[in-house]
């Protein structure tokens, strides 16, 4: 039951066995809980209900998190204590500085462009006849995996050498050729390649921004809009003075949320370039250092850095949410 299942029936059997085992554990918990009644028993019931959760979180999140922080002060093999050396490496080594530079570019460009596009699109299609279809088109990329999205875009960026009969099969290079240019190795040219990877993330996240901002736009009271219309306000003034101020708290939440997702972007970089050609970012570098370069200490330090970078964004996000709830 705890071995590797290799045929499909075996796999299904193992899954059913696991679900049964899980159901049995739940059954025992509920059975014991049912014996305790009244206010006295409450404490016991609460702890029984929380027991599996606390156990899993302690072993699967809290302990590993602390352990990684501890490991980040050790060398590549995880044996010798080296203090802050790994962190110094991140901020001084040339390759690592490229990684940091790329991460900054990602975290600045993706949230702003994705949110801007999402907002503009939400306004454009608001109350139009094809609104639901139009929205689904932009939103669909959000539901597929980053890997599939990367394959889709890698095909867009595909390059064929510029010789005699060879025709381009990637749309971007074909457009370049149609315009009279020479095909470019899009994913190899740095820093162009980083921006082309960023396009994929924007393609995915714009739908998220659009959906949430569209809900916020629809929540603007009709009478305000009507009043502005009667005043003969033009589209730009309407946007500047009514739409934007009304959705501003939501914009902040969307920006920070996409920012966090972008910080952790890994799948896109790994699938499209593998972090080569100066495209690596922190989350990808964590994987490469840990599993390819066998540098556990540096890998751990990169993971911790990721954690540290997320905290201020989340804190800001929560503060904005609180304030908008209060007002």
């Amino acid at each position, binding site marked *: 039951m705890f071995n590797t299942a290799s045929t499909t029936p075996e796999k299904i059997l*193992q899954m059913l066995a696991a679900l049964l085992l899980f159901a049995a554990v739940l059954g025992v918990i509920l059975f014991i809980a049912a014996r305790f009644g009244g206010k006295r028993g409450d404490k016991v019931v609460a702890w029984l209900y929380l027991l599996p959760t606390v156990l899993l979180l302690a*072993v699967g*999140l809290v302990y590993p998190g602390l352990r990684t922080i501890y490991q980040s002060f050790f060398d590549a093999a995880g044996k010798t204590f080296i203090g802050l050396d790994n962190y110094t490496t991140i901020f001084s080594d040339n390759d690592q500085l490229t990684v940091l530079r790329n991460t900054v570019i990602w975290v600045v460009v993706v949230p702003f462009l994705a949110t801007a596009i999402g907002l503009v699109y939400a306004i454009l299609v608001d*109350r139009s006849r094809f609104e639901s279809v139009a929205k689904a088109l932009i939103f669909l990329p*959000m539901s597929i995996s980053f890997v599939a999205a990367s394959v889709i875009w890698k095909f867009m960026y595909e390059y064929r050498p510029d010789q005699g009969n060879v025709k381009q099969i990637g749309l971007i290079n074909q457009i370049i050729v149609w315009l009279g240019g020479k095909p470019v190795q899009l994913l190899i040219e740095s820093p162009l390649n980083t921006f082309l990877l960023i396009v994929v993330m924007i393609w995915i996240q714009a739908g998220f921004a659009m959906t*949430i901002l569209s809900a916020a736009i629809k929540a603007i009271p009709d009478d305000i809009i009507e009043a502005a219309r009667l005043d003969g306000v033009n589209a730009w003034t309407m946007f500047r003075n009514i739409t934007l101020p009304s959705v501003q708290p939501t914009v902040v939440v969307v920006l920070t949320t996409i920012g966090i997702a972008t910080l952790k972007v890994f799948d896109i970089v790994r*699938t499209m370039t593998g972090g080569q050609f100066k495209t690596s970012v922190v989350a990808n570098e964590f994987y490469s250092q840990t599993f390819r370069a066998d540098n556990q200490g540096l890998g751990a330090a990169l993971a911790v850095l990721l954690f540290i970078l997320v905290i201020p964004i989340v804190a800001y996000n929560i503060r904005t949410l609180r304030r*908008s709830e209060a007002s």
Partner: protein
Amino acid sequence: MTVTPVTTTPPLTAEKPSASSIAKKKLSSPWASIAAIVLAVLWTLPTFGLLVSSFRPERAIKTTGWWTFFSDPTVTMENYKAVFGEEGGVNLASYFVNSLMICIPAVLIPMALATLAAYAFTWIQFPGRNFLFIVVFALQIVPLQVTLIPLLEIFVKIDLTGTFWTLWISHSTFALPLAIYLLSNFMREIPSGLIEAARIDGAGHVSIFFKVMLPLLTPALAAFGIFQFLWVWNDLLVALVFAGGGDEVAPITLQLANLSGTRGTAWQLLSAGAFVSIVVPVTVFLLLQRYFVRGLLAGSVKG
């Protein structure tokens, strides 16, 4: 008035526009319509190109652009046969099964555990309740990367590597903070009178849980379930670390990523493979987008 995004349910369907608003719009903004159409086309074109390619013969894909399909349409199912067949070495069917095997328990387990935990947090008084809840809430922001290596060491120690168990356990664990947060938010909105009435009738926590809570929780459970399903189905990182590369445990995303890495120019396989992996999440999304969006809103800081 402001909107609190976490609790908003954005309607994806348009409300019926009045005739006058359409007329006004049409008169005032032909540019707006054009801009919207351009954006929609830009967003759809990449996927469309690969979709068209997946039905073209290998030679055609590799020598001409997919846009030439419209002047010279030849359609074949060979690519899809190739990714499912064993001889190409792609064997996507196996990985597809793996993805399902991983997803089902990885959705059901955290769902059940989180419901129990959220019930305890919301409806039972016990010492340390607030503190524990804040800890669980805060754990949402821990990036997966921080936990992977120590967790892998534990799995090696108890000899679970290379089995579904590693993925079931890790995905379930990672999902719990979000699930508990989502479900307890929802439970708090259930009027306490309902619970108290049941208690006065002599019902214990177990029967209240099943008879009163569970039926009311369906929308929240659906929101979380869909979010978690798509999260697990689309995951690459956790699978890379725990599943190994073989077709015994690895999910479809992993095989697609490997294929893209090792056979990056085999577009006949990559295009068909990508669409096989996309079919499930897109179907789930189209059928249940209302719930999905709600889960997405709540789960946006996860991971």
